[in-house]
């Protein structure tokens, strides 16, 4: 009986020594330092993300296999954890696949040539490359679907963004020149495609706004005080 119990106990105990545990801790620290160095190294985004994910995965496996003893433990534990982990990975891929469509459209709008955006400024024909955020024509005089931009805003946007564009808590953010600090393309994309995680719908889909309409709105909210 004593012998059996000792044997069972021996099976439970991983063979790792204190010295080895300390070495593993040291290796994990070194890997973290490498990750940190990589994040400051100025590598292009693609290889950087791949390298960071790789080192993160290595640390993950080391902790699970050696600190949590999964390498030496009963296969049932391994299967149980693998089941949850694989399910979580599938969930992550599925969610990103479902909701990352908006990012693709952001890239698309970001890629619209400068001229195409400028051409959308109401009746303005100047077309010269303006600095970021500088309106080409009078931003208050733009037209959206044949009606003045301010009127369109009052009829369609105030329910969520407030009559004076001050925002409505829990619904729409303030749309004042002082707070809109992103490039025009960002707001263009938000109006055209909506914004994941908010009540903002796609106005291209719901109202059929054209790029020119949207651009008039962007210039209006970015440059005209209420």
């Amino acid at each position: 009986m004593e012998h059996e119990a000792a044997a069972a106990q021996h099976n439970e105990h991983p063979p790792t020594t204190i010295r080895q545990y300390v070495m593993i801790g040291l290796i994990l620290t070194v890997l973290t330092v490498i990750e940190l160095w990589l994040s400051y190294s100025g590598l292009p985004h693609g290889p950087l993300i791949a390298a960071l994910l790789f080192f993160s995965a290595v640390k993950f496996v080391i902790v699970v296999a050696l600190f949590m003893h999964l390498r030496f433990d009963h296969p049932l534990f391994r299967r149980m954890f693998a089941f949850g982990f694989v399910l979580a990975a599938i969930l992550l891929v599925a969610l990103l696949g479902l909701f990352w469509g908006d990012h693709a459209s952001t890239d698309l709008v970001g890629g619209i040539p400068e001229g195409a955006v400028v051409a959308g400024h109401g009746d303005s024909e100047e077309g010269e490359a303006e600095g970021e955020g500088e309106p080409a024509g009078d931003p208050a005089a733009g037209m959206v679907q044949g009606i003045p931009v301010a009127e369109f805003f009052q009829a369609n946007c105030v329910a969520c963004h407030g009559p004076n564009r001050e925002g409505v808590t829990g619904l729409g953010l303030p749309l004042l020149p002082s707070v809109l600090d992103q490039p025009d393309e960002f707001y263009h994309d938000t109006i055209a495609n909506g914004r994941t995680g908010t009540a903002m719908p796609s106005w291209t889909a719901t109202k059929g706004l054209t790029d020119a309409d949207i651009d008039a709105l962007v210039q209006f909210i970015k440059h005209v005080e209420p």
Partner: protein
Amino acid sequence: MAAAHEVQHHTSTGVDNRKLLMWVFLASECLFFGTLISTYLIFKGESLVPPRPEDVLDIPLTSASTFVLLMSSLTMVLAVYGAQHGRIGMMKGMLLCTVLLGLGFLGFQVYEFMHFVHEGLSLSTNQFGASFYVLTGFHGFHVGIGVLYLTSLLIGSMRRHGLGRDRDLWVDTAGLYWHFVDIVWIVIFTIIYLMPH
């Protein structure tokens, strides 16, 4: 000894049910954090108003707290080693170190949250605020639970009969929970702090 042996063989799976329960729980936790991490990634770059990650995240500070949590995993595994090899003094000392390092990590997190709120980032400011606070907040909550869990073991080990004949099982199971909290942070640290914004 005989009783411990008996307990071990009374399950149809051949493993202790309490330890199996912890692994099943951790498997479900993978889904819990997987969902929160997915949400963070989906909302990444979607914030309409500042502050954005690059405005507020302090990578050197978080690297220090990451090191603290990593070291707590080392002290935890040494506590398990002590429990399994009958070195009770080592087990208690390492449990205490783990609790203190866990508290240190929480201290860093409280400081970080207060700093972010001061910078104007709240749970409802933008998508970054919402997904960041929920993800790291739930992780911090898990660390807090872990600190209480380990403290209860530490107090238990101070009693006359210590943690009883299942001592190594109790400490081993608590260790699994603690290491899991550490591996979640390994992923969070990479995704939130190190990846380009």
